[in-house]
């Protein structure tokens, strides 16, 4: 009986928090389908009285800014997030393999140095990082968004944790057979990573898709903007003050790719979070 009561309390609390968690997103999707006059009403209308799916087409294709549409921003975002994720998968497992399977002087301090970068907020180094990008000639280029996230302390640590658990005997056997070190990594160890590749991919994809401050600093021409940067041109105080339904359609479109990606790769994503917190070897 006491167990039963406990479960009721559990449900009530979880439902309340779950509602808090979903409500803004549900309201956003509902508003995205509304006519402008139905968006901000008291009482709130959770179901649009008149459905207007054309909002999405308008939000996506209409040139809102100086000639660029949300579609342009979305293509930039997809390019950046996909290239960054692929680069991160390859580079992080390459480096993680070195940290996991070779013993050499200075290895552990080096790994700690990489990890310590996760303790520093990115926003504290944007000024010098901006100067470095300027020196590399990457300002206003999409590559400026890709390069700094192609290898991070987090992804190195993740890859290392996954690779440590792979059997070293396979490497020794391949060496006896005369395989080169790059071949051993590329043909034997990398394919064994399997689901870990999905983990590295989704974590990097989400970070890359959602970055805002860094693109705001390095990008200047609108046809290079990513989705969050384009969206920030909307918002209170902008010239599109009354187009709330279109804002919400644009916001909905912006959260669809990361949400779909997350729902497809929920397990590897959660496994990645657990590994990062040091709970899983």
């Amino acid at each position, binding site marked *: 009986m006491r167990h039963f009561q406990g*479960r009721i309390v*559990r*449900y009530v*609390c*979880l439902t309340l928090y*779950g509602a808090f968690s*979903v409500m*803004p*997103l549900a309201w*956003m999707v509902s508003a995205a389908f509304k006519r402008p006059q139905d968006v901000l*009403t*008291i009482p*709130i209308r959770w179901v649009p009285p008149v459905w207007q799916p054309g909002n999405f087409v308008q939000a996506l294709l209409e040139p809102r800014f100086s000639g660029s549409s949300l579609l342009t921003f979305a293509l930039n975002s997809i390019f950046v997030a996909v290239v960054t994720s692929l680069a991160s998968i390859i*580079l992080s497992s*390459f*480096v993680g*393999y*070195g*940290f996991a399977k*070779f*013993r*050499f*002087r200075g290895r552990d301090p080096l790994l700690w140095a990489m990890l310590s970068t996760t*303790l*520093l*907020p990115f*926003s*504290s*180094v*944007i*000024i*010098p990082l901006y*100067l*470095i990008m300027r020196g590399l000639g990457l300002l206003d280029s999409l590559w400026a968004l890709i390069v*700094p996230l192609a*290898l991070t302390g987090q992804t190195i640590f993740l890859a290392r944790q996954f690779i440590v658990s792979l059997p070293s005997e396979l490497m020794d056997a391949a060496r006896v057979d005369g395989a080169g070190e790059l071949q051993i990594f590329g043909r034997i160890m990398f394919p064994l990573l399997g689901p870990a590749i999905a983990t590295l991919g989704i974590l990097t994809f989400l970070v890359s898709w*959602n970055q*805002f*401050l860094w693109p705001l600093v390095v990008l200047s021409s609108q046809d290079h903007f990513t*989705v*969050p940067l384009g*969206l*920030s041109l909307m*918002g*209170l105080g902008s010239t599109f003050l009354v187009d*709330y339904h279109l*804002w*919400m359609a*644009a*916001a909905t479109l*912006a959260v669809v790719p*990361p949400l779909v990606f*997350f729902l497809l790769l*929920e397990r590897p994503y959660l496994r990645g*979070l*657990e590994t990062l*917190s*040091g*709970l*899983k070897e």
Partner: protein
Amino acid sequence: MSSSASRADPREHPLIPRETKYGLFFVSPSILFFLVFWIAPVVLALYYSLTNWKIGPNATFVGLRNYADLLIDPRFRQATLASAELTGLAVASTVLLALGLAVLLNDDALPGNRLFKVLIILPVVTDWVATGLVWQLVFLPNRGVLPGLFSLVGLRAWMGLGWTSTSSLAPMAIALFIIWKTTGLYAIIFLAGLKGIPRHFAEAAVVDGATGWQVFQQITLPLLRPISVFVVVTAFVTTVGLFEPVFMLTGGGPADATRVLPIFLYETFFQFHNGGYASAAGVLFLLLCLAFAFGAARVMRYSFYE
């Protein structure tokens, strides 16, 4: 350092052990990245922080003047206070809520358990700007979602509150946005920590007559210590460095009430082009974060035993 297996290898270099050679080869990209994206920026920031550099090519050495100016600059002091207020509010609520949610979710037999987990983590994977637009409309006085909910429960007097335009409410509004966006992440991490605690510890204590609260306080919490350190430090570093939620909801206002350090740094450099001064502020910000990270790790490691 090399293992006995590799010593027998005929390809062994006489001076550089094979393991060192290939180990360094594989980790070399990380050394390059570390130098270019962390060491170089810190060195550059330290260098420019000692100059009066604006944005052009000229930079004259001025010693520690930028630091001295920062210490008496009321705007910098206000930014530090605003950061402390917002971070304290958001991190404390986020961590406690996340721990509570993890305890509630730590029951695999609970029907719908997986659905709740997905619901709670949804805001984590969405982006700050798109959801920031939504939260602008949530807080819109008289017409937004929050006023709509207030009118539903009879709090008509609260409908006109300017959540993002009143100095006393703005930090709370931003903190609520941050709580909504990040709690799920830490709940999942705490949950993984809870699952790692062997069930028989709690069961034995219950047999000995311990209540649920006693078990939580005296068995669960101490065993969660390492993961709690991780969550608090991560939540602090992430939250104190946040630019987006403030930028989206208040832009630093009203009257500097939410002009946190990342906004201060951004404006000092990219709007006022005061490079040397902004670099010095960046260095102080970095030191603050390091001090907190190490301090928190130390305090939380020992406090449970004293």
